């Protein structure tokens, strides 16, 4: 069985506040290889995680500082970020 990847996960704005966390180092279980799979994996923690990252919530994601679609693949060492839709300008 392939060992899981280590990644860094960042949270911003309302997502960060609801989760009470800005950043964590995470070892993903084998088979978790896309952004949406990481989000689903985090939801399994239950509580605020299930709620904040719930499927009905509009959450955007970036991998290594590039905005990506949910199906984007991730690699070991990647920096993954979850945040609400942006509101700058």
């Amino acid at each position: 069985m392939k060992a899981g990847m280590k990644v860094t996960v960042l949270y911003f704005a309302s997502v960060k506040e609801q989760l009470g966390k800005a950043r964590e180092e995470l070892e993903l279980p084998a088979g978790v290889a896309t952004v949406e799979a990481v989000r689903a994996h985090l939801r399994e923690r239950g509580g605020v995680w299930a709620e904040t990252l719930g499927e009905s919530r509009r959450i955007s994601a970036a991998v290594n500082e590039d905005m990506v679609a949910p199906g984007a693949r991730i690699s070991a060492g990647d920096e993954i970020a979850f945040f609400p839709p942006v509101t700058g300008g």
Partner: protein
Amino acid sequence: MKVSVQQDDFDLSTEVRAFRKNPKIGAIATFVGTVREVPMTLEHYPGMTRKALEKIVREAQARWQVLDCTVIHRYGPLQPCDQIVLVAVASPHRGDAFAACEFIMDYLKTQAPFWKKEQTAEGERWVEARASDDAAAARWRS
């Protein structure tokens, strides 16, 4: 080309004056966004913000004749009437300058990782993304 993500305020005249060294430029379009009514704090994703803004500027350069361009976006606490964002585009003719300036603003609104939190009388609240901003960015894709 200049992209800056900063806490400090900026001066429109200074930024525009910097363009006026290139005699090929015949049109400069500028947009300044300001804080409306409610004090706010702007959070951003350091590292990604600059990269995202540079990518948007490159897309504008690929579509229109852009001889020079400045994008400045502030973060941190801001008061009503404070300046938030500047987009200035210099082109040979006004059509390109107007279009590129509007394109950059529309894309910035949906692609650059900034989030506004308003300090209202009832307490703090995160500003919700607007569907009209998505629609504004989408119309450039057709």
